[in-house]
């Protein structure tokens, strides 16, 4: 009985941590390249799930006349994911082009870029609120949820899908960053931003690529989140985004492994706290763990302290 509960909670934690990990990947990618905390990232996640909502309802033919053919469910799901990722990547790149790049060109202090990012996040949140109204939307069911029970442990296909997707995405990103040429360029930029353009590497292209990667991961997380918890509201990205950021920092920001481990770790802490204490204590304990952890190891799990020169 105890083990069943443990495994059940473990599965829940893996799923919950997957969302954090997917969003944290976006934070960490952008930070790794630009040393910029893209505070708007949590809201890109929110935008992602809204775009997913509109794409899915369009594909399911809920807007009369716009969708002549009836598509099979699997195709709808894959198309929704694909289109949402592209559109959300567009949003992320737009933010980069409109807000961050002019500041970078001017050589403004990093702090100003961080403020701009914070404000872009607020803009997305409240712009959404102003445009679409405060009423919650429920995400359509893209495929039927099946619940399996093995040895007293219940899990749905959605849960498995989320966990497997996260691990696949992690492997993919790790390969891109470690093995490909553009990944090498990304690492080079974070290593020495001044020298990279001298080597003939188009720095802006690499940065845009990073934003595309990060935002599409957020879109993926958004759609998967909306499938698992089908209620959408404009502020959904705020708290999840901040927590994902904490996951990224916990793992050591700038490290892809760190985002994955940090995300899962935060998921475990939250789920096990909720399972054994009153659930109102969840945020309190999660943040206290973070505070204590960072007091002892300020750079996170995989992070390395940057050498400071005088």
């Amino acid at each position, binding site marked *: 009985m105890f083990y069943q509960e443990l495994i059940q909670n473990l599965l829940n934690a893996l799923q919950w941590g997957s969302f954090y990990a997917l969003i944290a990947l976006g934070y960490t990618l952008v*930070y790794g390249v630009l040393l910029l*905390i893209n505070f708007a990232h949590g809201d890109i996640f929110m935008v992602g799930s809204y775009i997913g909502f509109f794409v899915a309802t369009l594909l399911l033919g809920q807007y009369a006349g716009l969708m002549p053919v009836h598509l099979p469910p699997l195709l709808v799901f894959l198309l929704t994911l694909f289109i949402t990722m592209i559109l959300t990547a567009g949003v992320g790149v737009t933010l980069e082009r409109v*807000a961050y790049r*002019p*500041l970078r060109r*001017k050589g*403004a*202090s990093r*702090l*100003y*870029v*961080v*403020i*701009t990012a*914070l*404000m*872009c996040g*607020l*803009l997305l*949140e*409240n*712009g959404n*609120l*102003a445009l679409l109204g*405060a009423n919650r939307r429920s995400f359509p069911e893209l495929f039927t949820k099946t619940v399996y029970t093995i040895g007293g442990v219940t899990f749905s296909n959605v849960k498995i899908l989320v966990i497997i997707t996260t691990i696949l995405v992690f492997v993919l990103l790790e390969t891109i960053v470690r093995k490909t040429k553009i990944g090498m360029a990304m690492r080079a930029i974070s290593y020495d931003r001044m020298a990279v353009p001298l080597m003939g590497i188009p720095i802006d292209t690499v940065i845009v690529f990073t934003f595309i990667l990060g935002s599409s991961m957020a879109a993926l997380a958004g759609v998967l989140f909306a499938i698992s918890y089908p209620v959408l509201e404009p502020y959904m990205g*705020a708290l999840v985004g*901040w927590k994902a*950021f*904490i996951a990224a*920092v916990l793992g050591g*920001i700038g490290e892809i492994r760190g985002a994955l481990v940090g995300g899962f770790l935060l998921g475990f802490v939250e789920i096990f706290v909720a399972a054994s204490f*009153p659930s*109102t*204590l969840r*945020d*309190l304990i999660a*943040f*206290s763990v*973070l*505070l204590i952890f*960072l*007091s002892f190891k*300020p*750079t*996170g799990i995989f992070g390395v302290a940057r050498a*400071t020169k*005088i």
Partner: protein
Amino acid sequence: MRRFTSVFLYILLGVLTIAAARANWINAYIQIIIMFIGINIILSTSLNLVNGYMGEFSVGHAGFMAVGAYVTSVLNIWFFTNSQVFGSSLLSPSSALYLFPVTLLLGGVGAALVGLLVAIPSFRTRGDYLAIITLAVSYIVKSSIENIQVIGGARGFMGMRNIVNSMQEMVNLPWVMVWTFIAVGLTVWIIHRFVNSIHGKGIVALRDDEIASEIMGIDTHRMKLTAFMLSSGLAGIAGGLFAHILGYINPGTFTIMKSTEILVMVYLGGMGSLSGSVLSAIVFTLLLELFRPLQVVKWVVIPLLLILLMMFRPEGLLGHRELSDVFPRLSRIFSPRERQA
């Protein structure tokens, strides 16, 4: 004599405003706005100490404000009123008049102690990681308040109106406004003196280069401790006043949105500029009120304004300068000491 001109002007302004409020020449709405301007001045100048002068990035200022608000309110209700929660009053309600500043100060002390939670990790880390710690502290504060049922939990805490009423029964003056004026004046004076003192220079040195300043013999730990505790303590005082203006507080007020508002004020005014912070607190509060009819769109317009500001004038209205540097004639009114390198 010239050194005191600004003090006289400020006292004159305060007395006139309070007299006008007492005589009902200005209505309650405008009175509340004036008090909010005062609160925002305290909040933005105190955050500027950490974010501007010390160059850290604190994003959890509202948490300290919450601590101050709750400590002051709970002490006041406990001591001076009969409530179901804390039983009958320990002291006579009339003594609230004399002891209000004490509880306000205790709220500040409470907030300063919570500020230690940020100050101690700051010895080992700075920048982005410290920003997370400030964020975590503000969430911890909010979440703890939500979980303490005695003080109302997530439902909030009220009854501060009785304190204000009992103070007004004793001497008929708008007491919260009086204390707001006094607190604002003292805050600006303290921070002004602080940043121009040897401590302030030490903090600016810390911002420019931590290791170098340590080599030059600056006690960095003590500097950080003082700056964080002073900043959070002042925020706590602002919180105590805030609670007594509204008469009702709940943890939902002190979220990241509130912190963001304070951040906006600091960066609008310019980092490391005291007069900039004061100015931007006034401008921002008035802007918020002007945009109130826009409702939701308000929170679209404000971030947009700030993004544009960051693009075209990233150093804020007065970045690292004081008003007297921009308008040299002002230094005739304000003392020559206000000028800064």
